[in-house]
């Protein structure tokens, strides 16, 4: 079986500052993969390099096509939905318009049924469908961002620190929903997180990123048992 996303020798950075020094990882169809790492390790840069928001070198093969160096809108059209860090809420649009813009690349009546579908997953959004997204709480904005990404019917969702700035209970609920989405709908995800405990529960496999290099990888269970990972990311 070939991987859905196959990344090798990925290099990226900002201007003269190199952040990623050639990293390799993969995500299989229907799999959730987590990349753990501290602040500044290059987690966000990794996702931005994949979705074309920054220039990158190396190889990124998605769905058997090379996507490295392509424009973000083309990569979105190929089936990658990126939920950016800080949620990327489109503040001046209503909740429903945020979902609708997620389906920008699609046409047809199924868009309406998809909106209803994500409303049933996130009932709070339905109650506030006509409200400006900017007035919603952090947890609700994260729901909007995820629902917007799913409106594209992506093959792969990139999630950049979904727990950032959320209360622990909200985070737990969110990760339960993400787990359901993966189990029930088979949606593949690449998640970068600092909250290793929750992320390793969600993911099947993981990688540990330190200053732009992958230092450890393995199944979620292996990583959860790894002493270095436990010390650095689980605080045990």
């Amino acid at each position: 079986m070939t991987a859905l996303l196959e990344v090798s020798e990925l290099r990226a950075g900002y201007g003269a500052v190199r952040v990623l020094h050639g990293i390799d990882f993969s995500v299989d169809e229907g799999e959730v993969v987590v990349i753990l790492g501290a602040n500044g390790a290059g987690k966000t840069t990794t996702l931005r390099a994949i979705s074309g928001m920054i220039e990158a070198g190396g190889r990124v093969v998605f769905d058997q096509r090379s996507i490295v160096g392509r424009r973000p809108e083309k990569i979105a059209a190929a089936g990658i939905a990126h939920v950016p860090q800080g949620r990327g809420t489109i503040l001046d649009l209503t909740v429903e318009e945020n979902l609708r813009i997620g389906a920008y690349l699609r046409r047809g009546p199924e868009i309406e049924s998809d909106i209803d579908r994500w409303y049933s997953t996130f009932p709070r959004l339905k109650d506030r469908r006509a409200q400006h997204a900017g007035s919603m709480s952090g947890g609700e904005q994260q729901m909007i961002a995820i629902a917007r990404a799913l409106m594209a019917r992506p093959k792969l969702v990139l999630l950049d620190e979904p727990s950032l700035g959320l209360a622990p209970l909200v985070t737990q609920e969110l990760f339960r929903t993400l787990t359901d989405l993966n189990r029930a709908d088979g949606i593949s995800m690449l998640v970068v997180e600092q909250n290793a405990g929750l992320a390793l529960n969600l993911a099947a496999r993981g990688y540990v990123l330190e200053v732009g290099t992958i230092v450890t990888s393995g199944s979620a269970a292996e990583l959860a048992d790894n002493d270095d990972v436990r010390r650095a990311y689980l605080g045990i």
Partner: protein
Amino acid sequence: MSLFLTQLMNGIGSGAVYASLALALVLVFRTTGILNFAQGEMALYSTYLVWYFTQHDLPVWIAILLSMAISFVGGAAIERVLIRPVEQASPLVLVIVTIGMFLAINSIAQVQFGNDIKLLPRAYPNKTWLPGNVQISSDTLVLVGVLLAECLILYLLLNRTRIGLAFRAVASNPESSRLVGVPVGRMLMLGWAMAAAIGALAGALVVAPVGLQGASMQSILVYAFASAALGGFDSPLGAVVAGLIVGVAGTMTTQYLHAVHDIELVVPFGLILVVLLVRPSGLFGSTRVERV
């Protein structure tokens, strides 16, 4: 009283022009975050095109529509060729670029068309009505009608179409829009294109009664800037309401304070000053409140 109402009508008429041009400024500002000092000169050039087409025996309404179409394409081209390369530059650089465009377009227009006054044929008959002793001219009615039509079309386009949704999304958050596949660059071009077309229409209508020359649009641009500042640079509705307010304020000042020569020119600058001091986001602009 009838004098007051007559001047109110006149003010609304000229206000409709300021509102149109302010609307153009707002469309550009909302998407690219640029105060386009060249908006008036772009409209000037478009109006010269209208004149040029009428010289070649096209009916004036056709000439206006043709000029609007060319301006639409030209506006998009200006965004792509002149603005895109400096998009990430500091606001100061962008101001210099649009002022450079102001000078360049003005000079090109005068070299190409000469600096004598051009008379545009009227697009509609010049009539005046006197209901209850209040003078209402066909100029006022047409300008207000055109403004209302512009607002309606813009409203429907922005709020009822897929492309309008994408346009508003880009204005609010270009990065997230790009991530869902919206071609951001094309939306920015659309903003400039619509602004240029609106400017073309406003220019053609405002110039027809008085004649066209190199400086025709300059004071109008100042009034439009005052309107956009008063209404809030990111609010189309604000631009329209404030444009009318500025128009009425201008005619009233001329009418009742005419002892001081050119006193009405104080109005736009005074308004800009007061708005900046009291409410920098304008009457309808959003002071961004966001929860994180």
